[in-house]
């Protein structure tokens, strides 16, 4: 072999070899994901096995159950696993659902605005703004929530009468559903906007021009043709945002109130001022208990539920996009 030839001609970087090396790496990453799923569910199993479907029920006080679990590991070998997570699940549903709903509507309007209606200078401002909002770390949102939004809600929005009316049950200090939903909305909406506007830009110009040519105005054309044919992107963006919202732990641990309490919408509008604690923050707040076996199983069971619901949302999104394949660009 000629020594002047660069390395890549030699057998060291032959095509088959490179392909095999890259393939092995790819397999490794796939295996890592499988290992993650298996590990989480194996570690979570004791908690699910002891509680059965009651894991998802709401009987008893979650804080007391968590204390009992942690005590049982310190005092005897007789572990207690009883854990009924409904208040945490309900809080997750309320906060995620509220934030995703608000973010979905506003992200739709904003992305339509960026792609179709904003003057050149405005979209040149909005695009970096959206990118910036998407990249602000969640602790910063949490910090601003704790130091600005929470005191504002506690001091100005919640009335003394409302505080007195629930005084025996829970104290309204501003750490609330409302604060959590508002901050979470600001966190996930930019994510949606960037994916939605990519989808809107990819709509076939001919379809839009066809509608415009029929005399439909730009607004209606955008919503009836543009947004409708960008539906796969809208589903994809929403699924990503839901996954982000379900998994958000640190920011919500800071401002959701950290009380395992299930706000009841039937109580009237006051429920949005009530504190609660979703699943993710429960893990963060109790992470120092990780070394006690029953608590470890409980935390992993929460993680398993988070993982499973994120996976289910991805699956739902994938199924939804499959049925919309005809809208995708060839």
């Amino acid at each position, binding site marked *: 072999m000629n020594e002047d030839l660069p390395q890549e001609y030699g057998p060291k970087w*032959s095509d088959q070899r490179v392909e095999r090396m890259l393939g092995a790496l790819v397999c490794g990453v796939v295996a890592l994901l499988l290992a993650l799923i298996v590990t989480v569910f194996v570690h979570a199993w004791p908690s699910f096995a002891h509680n059965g479907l009651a894991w998802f029920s709401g009987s008893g006080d979650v804080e007391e159950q968590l204390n009992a679990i942690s005590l049982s590991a310190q005092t005897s070998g007789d572990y207690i696993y009883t854990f009924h997570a409904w208040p945490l699940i309900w809080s997750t549903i309320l906060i995620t659902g509220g934030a995703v709903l608000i973010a979905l509507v506003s992200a739709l309007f904003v992305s339509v605005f960026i792609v179709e209606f904003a003057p050149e200078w405005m979209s040149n401002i909005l695009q970096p703004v959206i990118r910036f909002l998407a990249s602000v770390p969640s*602790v910063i949102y949490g910090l601003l929530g704790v*130091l600005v939004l929470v005191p504002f809600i506690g001091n100005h929005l919640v009335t003394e009468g409302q505080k007195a009316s629930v005084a025996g049950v829970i104290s309204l200090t501003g750490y609330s559903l409302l604060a959590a939903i508002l901050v979470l909305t600001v966190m996930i909406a930019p994510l949606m906007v960037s994916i939605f506007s990519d989808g809107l830009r990819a709509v076939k110009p001919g379809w839009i021009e066809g509608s415009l040519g029929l005399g439909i105005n730009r*607004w209606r054309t955008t*919503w009836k043709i543009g947004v409708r044919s960008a539906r796969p992107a809208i589903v994809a963006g929403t699924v990503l945002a839901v*996954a982000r919202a379900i998994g958000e732990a640190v920011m919500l641990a800071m401002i959701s109130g950290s009380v395992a309490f299930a706000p009841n919408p039937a109580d009237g509008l006051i429920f949005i001022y009530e504190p609660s604690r979703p699943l993710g923050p429960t893990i963060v707040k109790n992470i120092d208990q990780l070394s006690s076996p029953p608590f470890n199983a409980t935390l992993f069971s929460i*993680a398993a539920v*988070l993982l499973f619901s994120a996976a289910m949302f991805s699956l739902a999104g994938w199924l939804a996009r499959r049925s919309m394949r005809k809208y995708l660009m060839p």
Partner: protein
Amino acid sequence: MRDASAQDLPLTVPPVPPPEQHDPPGAHQRKGAVEGSATWSLSDRIGLAICWALGLLFCAIAVAIVVYLLVQGIKFLRPEMLWTPAAAGFSETETGGFSDALFGTLIVAAMGIAIALPIGVAIAVWLVEYGRPTALARVTESTIEAIAGIPSIVLALFGTVIFSSTALGFLSRSSEGVVFGRSFFAAATMLSLVALPLIVASVREGLNSIPRHVREASYAVGKTKAATTRRILLPTCRPQVATGAMLGLGRIIGDTAIIVVLLGATQNFAPVEGVGFPFNYLRGAGTTLTNFVYEASPTGNLNQPQKAYAAAFVLLLMVLALNAAVDIVHRRARKVGTWSH
């Protein structure tokens, strides 16, 4: 009134866009050239007003965040905080600064991206250039998507299991057979998974945008696929690699859950004794800016809001710098032009 009179006119059909707009087939720019909102019905105009309101609201939120943190940062940030480590104390004047957190962020970012970038580029290259068998390519795509969707707190818990195993005890502190499992190695490895999907997506996009004939020209002069990838394709999509790396960096320095779980609940470096220089720190526990902000906020263990503002301001400056860097790379790449057209 204007609505009614406008509808009576026979020629309110939007003017046909001039034909030269058809030239770039993908990018359709209809902005500004078409009819205004004067002819629309009231509901449509209300919708447009909502668009403007929401757009301005987002701008206002962004400006508010930057200005507020700027004001608080200037008020509370003292330069000596950047090189004073945190200390125990009763008031905010006694507790030192956050130099360990700042260096921790830099270390974690460097290590995380050093792991994620080569793996991410390799996966993207395999997906675009090789991708056989097709089933494995599909599975890989879904895997990357799934990793992007895994909550980082779940990744963190998974990390505690891996890095507490005795086989990986050499990556963290261990005493009497019990592996502590919290170290810069552990945190950086898990954080690299957070950055991975962004890098793969960005590099894939770059590779896909290179037209086929470029590859064929290279094969025609006898280059192998591997050589083509290394000498032609990867240098061409350098902007996308840089973009992916910077997006990944942004996610790494912004992540808190993995740091809280896998780096330790301390505000100082905790080097392992009896190990050579870089590794005693990397195997030990530590902290980052995000962890510092979390702990220094009123809900954390330290409760020093002024320092939290100062640290958050430094963190925000880093994020802004990364954003600006992405912008510059994009602009330069556009100026140089690509293979297409």
